């Protein structure tokens, strides 16, 4: 009896966006990546039973009912231009594509008060193990949205010092066998290593100063999962009320960005001064593979909310948490992903 190693799992998901939350994507609209976390996107079925009902003669359940489906996934990867562009496009929601190769994806969060949608772009997510005659796993989750992404950059030469984690949540709609998807060839990625970082925060160039130790930044959509089940939201099998409800929408909730960093604390370090004065400024984070492959995040207005003097490897450092704020002219966050890959989130 052979065992199945998790390294066999093939993962592909929407490079383009679905036409709506319920329409499954075809292989031509997806791309395939490797990942570094083992977790699978397991569909979960919530059930209820009749134990509490009267008229049965006892308090024990005699029947169960499929209530609703849930599915979520987490992608952890070494940061590349391709996955970085994809994460900011699907995670922020408003995208302007320019260029004819390389392609530049300029992304901002959706602003409903300015007429934008309250729903993010949707995508499908496929997992397969030994597809074909000896299939172990073949399923497609439909109608997923990016709940958030987190980028971490650390000190050191390895790939692990520049990573991204992307959290996906879904409508619950799943094809759990025989998806008919032929997973495309693996995407060739252009890694964005820690050593390529350029960083300017609140008027200080931390790379030129050789002060930066690590940083972490990301975005959270806080999607209103319960609000996805509205009257008429639909069922796992359309028209079959016994198959369990699925969500008909995934609206973002109160969104928030985050940025924190650790830098060497030296004579003249002004983080604590800026904390006391609540000095605001931009934070511009750029990682690049080459001129055609990069990711830049611009927090349009940040102040320092926490500044702690600490140590890293017995070197005096300062750990700073920033509060990203909304600037009346430029919003909160602009992300620019540059890659040679066309049609991301289109």
């Amino acid at each position, binding site marked *: 009896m052979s065992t199945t190693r998790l390294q066999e799992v093939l993962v592909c998901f929407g490079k383009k966006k679905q036409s709506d939350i319920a329409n499954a994507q075809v292989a031509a609209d997806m791309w395939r990546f490797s990942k570094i976390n083992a977790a699978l996107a397991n569909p979960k079925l919530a059930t209820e039973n009749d134990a509490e009902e009267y008229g049965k003669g006892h308090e024990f359940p005699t029947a169960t009912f499929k209530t609703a489906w849930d599915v979520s996934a987490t992608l952890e990867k070494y940061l590349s231009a391709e996955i970085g562009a994809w994460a900011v496009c699907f995670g922020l929601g408003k995208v302007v594509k320019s260029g004819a190769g390389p392609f*530049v994806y300029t992304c901002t969060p959706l602003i409903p008060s300015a007429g934008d949608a309250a729903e993010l772009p949707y995508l499908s997510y496929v997992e397969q193990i030994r597809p074909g005659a000896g299939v172990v796993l073949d399923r497609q989750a439909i109608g997923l949205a990016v709940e958030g992404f987190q980028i971490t950059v650390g000190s050191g030469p390895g790939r692990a010092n520049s990573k991204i984690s992307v959290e996906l949540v879904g409508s619950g709609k799943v094809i759990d066998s025989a998806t008919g998807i032929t997973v495309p060839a693996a995407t060739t990625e252009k890694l964005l290593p820690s050593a390529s970082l350029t960083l300017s925060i609140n008027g200080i160039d931390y790379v030129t100063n050789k002060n930066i130790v690590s940083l972490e930044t990301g975005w959270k959509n806080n999607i209103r999962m319960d609000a996805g089940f509205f009257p008429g939201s639909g069922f796992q099998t359309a028209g079959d009320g016994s198959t369990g409800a699925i969500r008909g929408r995934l609206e973002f909730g109160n969104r928030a960005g985050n940025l924190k960093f650790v830098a060497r604390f030296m004579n003249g370090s002004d983080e604590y001064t800026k904390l006391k004065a609540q000095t605001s400024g931009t934070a511009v984070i750029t990682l690049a593979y080459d001129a055609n492959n990069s990711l830049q995040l611009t927090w349009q207005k940040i102040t320092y909310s926490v500044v702690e003097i600490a140590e890293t490897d017995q070197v005096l450092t300062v750990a700073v948490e920033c509060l990203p704020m909304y600037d009346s002219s*430029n919003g909160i966050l602009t992300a620019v992903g540059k890659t040679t890959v066309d049609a991301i989130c289109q």
Partner: protein
Amino acid sequence: MTEFVYMRAPWGGAEVRRVEAKPDVLTPLMISGWAQCEPPANDEEVTTNVHD
């Protein structure tokens, strides 16, 4: 070479602008509800304003 994109006014407005595809140009428009659109038909008025 300067790249340009077309942006349509918020709330389904009729105005279409041809603007430079630079973050400092696009960002104020994007957060104000302007969205990328296809190049307009020849009979549609387009405002070119690279400094907006």
